[in-house]
């Protein structure tokens, strides 16, 4: 391996460097530092309002930051414009509320980005989209409108839509929080398969089972800060901070 390539392999997929963000007087992110290696699965947990969703959304600049730097593949996030659009294309995002394009069929949702941004032909985009829809188990709904699908199916389409861009990183912002309980495992199964396939993932979730089984590292946030981070076994067996112990006691009670 050449030196340049070795260096590239060492470059973290995401670096968050002393990032701070305020909503008015409220400090949403307070001096956050986080580095995600290529192929790593980082699960961010914490109470509501802890800043975990905000942090996730800063990585593709859906949220701007007040100070600090964010690097994706070693490159600082560009300002709004064509360059940022290009970077976003390689960072997949899955939202809590799915956000499928409501006026387009499932298939068109998945082909739009590859055709407009990646310049794929309609035929190539369609083939790839059907392949991805099959992989997430919703190919029989390819020609329906999003509203005709269940939440779990819509969220799997949203994952396929993000994967169609061949992203280097996938961001998940509470992907199962809006789902009926019986739909959750379908979505988590797809995510688990992605993680096993080596995808670099940042997942904000309340699913402790997923964090325990799929994460390489668990990050616990509270009050806009990263309070502690550890491998899942260590974190769930013996959280170091009192705040994390409290949180786990509450969410794992049931």
């Amino acid at each position: 391996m050449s030196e340049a390539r070795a260096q590239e392999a060492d470059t973290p997929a995401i670096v968050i460097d002393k990032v701070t963000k305020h909503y008015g007087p409220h400090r949403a992110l307070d001096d956050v530092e986080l580095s995600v290696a290529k192929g790593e699965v980082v699960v961010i947990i914490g109470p509501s309002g802890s800043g975990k969703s905000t942090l996730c959304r800063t990585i593709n600049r859906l949220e701007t930051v007040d100070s600090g730097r964010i690097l994706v593949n070693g490159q600082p996030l560009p300002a709004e414009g064509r360059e940022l659009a290009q970077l976003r294309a390689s960072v997949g995002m899955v939202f809590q509320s799915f956000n499928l394009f409501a006026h387009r069929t499932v298939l068109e949702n998945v082909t739009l980005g590859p055709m407009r941004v990646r310049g794929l032909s309609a035929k190539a985009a369609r083939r790839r989209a059907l392949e991805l829809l099959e992989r997430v188990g919703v190919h029989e709904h390819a020609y329906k409108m999003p509203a005709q699908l269940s939440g779990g199916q819509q969220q799997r389409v949203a994952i396929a839509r993000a994967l169609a861009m061949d992203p280097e990183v996938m961001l998940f912002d509470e992907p199962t929080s809006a789902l009926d309980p019986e739909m959750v495992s379908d979505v988590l199964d797809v995510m688990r398969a992605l993680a096993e396939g080596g995808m670099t993932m940042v997942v904000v979730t309340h699913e402790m089972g997923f964090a325990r089984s799929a994460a390489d590292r668990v990050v616990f946030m509270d009050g806009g800060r990263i309070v502690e981070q550890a491998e899942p076994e260590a974190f769930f067996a013996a959280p170091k901070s009192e705040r994390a112990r409290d949180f786990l006691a509450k969410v794992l009670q049931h």
Partner: protein
Amino acid sequence: MNVFLDNIGVFRDGVLVTLALAAASTAVALPLGVLLAVMRVSPVEGFRTVGTVYVGIVRNIPLTVVFFFSAFVLPQLGVRFSYFGFAVIALVAYYASFFCEAVRSGINAVPVGQAEAARSIGLPFHECLRFVILPQALRSSIPPMVNVMIALVKNTAVASAFGVTESLGTMELLANRESTAVLSVLIATGLVYLAITIPLGLLTTHIERKVAFSR
């Protein structure tokens, strides 16, 4: 009703001018309104300012004043058109601002997550608008846009005061000529406008049903 039958050719000419005014003005004002709406939501501050100032001024003055500008100020600047042309310019300038606000209300009604998803797959701003936001916004703007069209059809009547003999001009002409049958002339003119505006309203329901999608 004899007045109407006796003068059917005169009425027809008036109606045709009304329809031509309305069609020509809508054909330009509607796209211009969409453009203004896009400017008003643009990330470029200069565009936003131009759009906001234009709409803020034009929408808030009487149409007659806009007609005066078009019919008397433009010729002084050396612009040469027929009365019809100046009437279309006035109607376009005025109604573009109303179409703009109808479209903008539609844009604001599209959930913010749609734009976030579009940006997240790497679409630049204009493609987010073109492929994701506007197709949804225009559908929900259909009822307010038809309201604007109906207002536009009715207010083509202002052109009669500026030398264009459309339906209202025809009415004045006939009312003077047939002074014993003024009521019939008035009723016939009212029916002429209703015959244009009511189908427009009915068309809305039809189009809305055709392009509907659920969330």
